[in-house]
């Protein structure tokens, strides 16, 4: 199964893998949403959307429809 940003749970961190450049706004790239950067899901808005993220140190919110276009790889926390 594909792991995308919207499938993260609150507090989980992941590495951005890949996305379809045509559906992601340039502004989001400029805010740091680029392959290889980390993303952490900080909060989910009350009705499940949008998502409040920490991408590469930038705090921003995006909608699920955008989040589900961005493939990530979950960072497993070592116990």
């Amino acid at each position, binding site marked *: 199964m594909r792991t995308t940003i919207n499938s993260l749970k609150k507090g989980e961190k992941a590495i951005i893998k890949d996305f379809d450049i045509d559906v992601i706004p340039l502004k989001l790239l400029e805010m740091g949403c680029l392959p290889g950067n980390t993303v952490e899901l900080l*909060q989910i808005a*009350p009705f*499940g959307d949008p998502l409040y993220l920490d991408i590469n140190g930038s705090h921003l*919110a995006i909608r699920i429809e955008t989040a589900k276009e961005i493939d990530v790889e979950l960072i497993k926390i070592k116990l």
Partner: protein
Amino acid sequence: MINQNINVALIGNPNTGKTSVFNQLTGLNQQVGNYPGITVEKKIGFCKLSHNIKANILDLPGTYSLNASSIDENVVIELMLNKNDKLYPDVALVVTDVENLKRNLLLFTQIKDLEIPTILVINMADRMAHKGITLNIPYLEEHLKTKIALISSRKGFGIDELKKLIVTYKSISNEPCLSASVIDPEYFNSLRKAFPNQLLYKLWLVITQDVNFLNLERKEIQGSFTKSHSDLKRLQQKETIKRYQFINDVLKEGLKVDATIAKDFRSKLDRVLTHKIWGYVIFFAILFVIFQSIFDWSKVPMDFIDSSFASLSTLANNSLPAGVLTNLISQGIIPGIGGILIFIPQIAFLFLFISILEESGYMSRVVFLMDKIMRKFGLSGKSVVPLISGTACAIPAIMATRNIENWKERLITILVTPFTTCSARLPVYAIIIALVIPDTRVLGVFNLQGLTLMLLYLLGFGMAIFSAYILNKILKIKGKTFFVVEMPNYKLPMFKNVAINVIEKTKAFVFGAGKIILAISIVLWFLASYGPGTKFKNADEIIRAKTANSTLSAQELENKVASYKLENSYIGIMGKTIEPAISPLGYDWKIGIAVISSFAAREVFVGTLATIYSVGGSDNENTIKNKMAAEINPATGKKIFNFASGISLLLFYAFALQCASTLAITRKETNSWKWPVGQLIFMSGFAYIVALIAYQILK
């Protein structure tokens, strides 16, 4: 030595404290205007750097990068590309937030590529210790090829050093810090060959977006160097990655963060403010406090302004020699000015609250909280900001829709924003509520008048949301939905920034609206003081003849003559003409006059009534409110401003689009007359029907 004037441009991401740096550098020595042809605010301030160097400091709109996605951001690019612009900077200051340095540096590297001497201003340095941040300034200066000013606009340190640094602008490097052309060497080489005299990065900006510069024709460049939209975007992504690689490399040495020291205040506050219950409770509590206090707190200064102008008018009437000019001053100009100044307390309070909410970073949380709900109505979470700003004035509110990325959501927001209760409606509401709603307390705490006002605000919002829902169903516009909102750090609002903002906005409103109101007041006075035919001229004799048998005091007789004159004046005739159309709404011809004259701007309503009643009434009841309260309908013997007609008026003003400026701004922002005309017909038609129904039920 000769005196020198240099141009300094302040550029930066939103939320970096750029405007407070501007305020620190210039104090109150600033001018706010517009860029020619567009409604983007242009702020220029002046600052003496040394005994012979003065600086014009330009506060450019906040932008995340030189790839513009709104008109505001376009302004930045067009200025930076045009060497012939008289504001073209001798030196650029890129303002950054020390906590977001990585992202803020992206714009810095782009500005550097334009080969303008650039100073890196690292703001909010007072938070470094708190966040465990240390910077290696010499290292950063060397690798970023710049000079750095470490400042705190909040605590006010580093500003003098920054001024000294600006003076040395000629020795500051204008070399780019990286070469963006490596992303596609072949393409950029051929571009360089075709335009050997142009800066490569400028060409690239012109190719990738909709800006013009110099004599270089866009078409000419694009013709031979066209790439598909998605190829260009791929290159832009490469460019962005390239820039971040460079920034990461530099920051690895230049910036250290000790995470163990960092205290996380943001996430705790976020947890409460965006909570699924508390988030909304807090938001609505804030709105409630705002509206209650606006009505309660502004009451005292407003009553004071009202009565001062009434006594000023009486004073002018008694002390100046009798004549037409005195009448114009005491009955036209003074009540007209009073009608403008009475707004100041409420407008100032509204702008005060809005700027505190924006400065503190809370507004972004509201956007986050409301997005899903707003989307059900075809709006965006970002529509909340225009809808709240709309409570001050629809003009800046409609301009604030520019950061809504989706055109359909933006259009709907523009169309429905004028339903929110703007400050121009406040004086109308205030005076009618004071007349028809009793000043009592409900449940011991809530002021009934305040509560009515709050209901009117909710009604405005409700109508905005409802029409958005309808428009969302009707409008068939397909567009990509982009939604990116930065969640800035929480900050305690700075008194100076808030104060300057409130003063600027209030001033702009009072002078902007004031001119119209004053002009209309004077025209009204003329129309009310003169009339056609013999009825107006011979009013005295006609009334004397009519009342010959009754015993009237001199005062009563004078009143009768005055109101007969008003009835037969030009304006009286106009009011009488439309009376059949408005009497089903419960209005008489005097209110009709006020409705006509306030077509261009709602707030004229109160001023008009003030002028009309000054012309027609006696001097005993001298405040506008008392005059209106005493007004009797001669046909029914009832008060003109009774509960039914009052509610009908409130509803009419709640919905009708009585504002020429709103029509103009909608035209500008939508680039078509279709939308403002539709807006006018729908809103005013709806207002008429609702007011009609309300009066017929309540009377």
